[in-house]
């Protein structure tokens, strides 16, 4: 039984999109009309009760019921088999430690990044390889979009009104990636986070726009040198927020070169925290004040500022294709934690 209000509108993309857009219920792009039939088909993707609530979405605290999330999934263009990923993302984001209440209205260009591990990647056609963070794959594009639509429609995060993001960034439309477990030399992110390899696991982490890191060398010394020089950036939030959980998304080629050089993920994180540092006097007075309020002295390495205070905070992911030496770093800083859970139907 569905309980949402039904409007008397034709099943027409242009009419429904315009009607919803006028009321602030879209991301600016056309949406699939969420008819009763489409919502019911979407709900076939889960065994959860449509009336069950996952919690209230801050800051306006609309109830994230399974039905409401299914409606946003329809609008985003999701297939029914994607719905469990969307539901799990809200299971995680509504935990207090994710600090969604701080993320939704912030001026900082933050958005939830969804990282998927396990066989579900193949079952739903989620890209993990070439172009993983770009266009072209329905699962990646629409799951992340459904998250954003639900954050707007249930949490009230309308850009400019409640979402006060100063400039925004395109990742706020959608940001959902699979890990390229098959071409990674290391255990998957989910295994590092306490799950069995082979389980379907979602990790959600708040991030900023990606910084491209290019080095086509086949020598691990070159690659680690380029990473160490690229991750520290004086204006990134994680420089002043020691609790941040930024993401280093390595392409499989870089990962293999580093593994051949003797690095595992723990060793790489430790090396980067020790070597990807900034001079303490590079901080502006204002940012020094911010960092000091977080206990500046506790987080210096040999008098220099590390990208994070604890190697465990750096989330290392292997994703993308083998076609070139491009990896990326997604800075972070919203006082929330990266969280993971199994994706259950």
């Amino acid at each position, binding site marked *: 039984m569905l309980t949402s209000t039904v409007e008397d509108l034709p099943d027409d993309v242009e009419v429904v999109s315009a009607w919803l857009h006028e009321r602030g219920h879209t991301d600016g792009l056309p949406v699939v009309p969420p008819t009763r039939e489409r919502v019911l088909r979407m709900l076939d993707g889960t065994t959860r009760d449509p009336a069950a609530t996952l919690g209230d979405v*801050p*800051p*306006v*605290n609309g109830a994230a019921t399974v039905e409401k999330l299914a409606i946003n999934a329809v609008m985003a263009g999701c297939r029914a088999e994607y719905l469990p990923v969307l539901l799990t993302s809200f299971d995680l984001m509504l935990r207090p430690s994710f600090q969604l209440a701080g993320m939704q*209205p912030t001026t900082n260009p933050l958005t939830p990044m969804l990282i998927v591990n396990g066989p579900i990647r193949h079952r739903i056609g989620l890209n993990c390889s070439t172009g993983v963070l770009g266009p072209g794959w329905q699962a990646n594009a629409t799951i992340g979009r459904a998250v954003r639509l639900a954050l707007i429609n249930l949490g*009230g995060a309308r850009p400019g009104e*409640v979402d*006060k993001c100063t400039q925004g960034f395109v990742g706020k439309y959608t940001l959902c990636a699979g890990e390229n477990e098959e071409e990674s030399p290391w255990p998957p992110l989910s295994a590092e986070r306490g799950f069995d390899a082979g389980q379907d696991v979602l990790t959600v982490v708040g991030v900023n726009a990606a910084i491209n890191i290019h080095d086509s060398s086949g020598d691990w010394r070159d690659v680690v040198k380029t990473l160490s020089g690229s991750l520290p950036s004086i204006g990134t939030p994680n420089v002043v927020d020691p609790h941040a959980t930024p993401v280093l998304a390595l392409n499989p080629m870089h990962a293999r070169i580093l593994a051949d050089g003797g690095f595992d993920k723990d060793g790489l994180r430790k090396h980067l925290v020790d070597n990807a540092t900034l001079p303490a006097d590079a901080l502006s007075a204002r940012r020094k004040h911010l960092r000091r309020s977080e206990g500046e002295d506790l987080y210096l390495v040999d008098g220099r500022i590390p990208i994070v205070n604890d190697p465990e905070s750096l989330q290392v992911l292997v994703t993308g294709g083998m076609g070139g030496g491009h990896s990326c770093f997604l800075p972070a800083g919203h006082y929330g934690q990266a969280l993971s859970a199994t994706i259950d139907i």
Partner: protein
Amino acid sequence: MPTVTLFTQVFAGLADAVATGAGAAELPRVVLPHPLNDRPEPDIRAALRERAGAILGGITC
């Protein structure tokens, strides 16, 4: 606990949404000029002094 919320002008809509979402639509609110964080301390004190009545009124209503 008596509470009054202070915010700058550009965050007025957000403050209304958060207060309403928290079930406290009547929460006393005082609007300050924007921007404030890059202003000299005397300017900030002056802006607050001008609104002292509203602030005190908010926490004693």
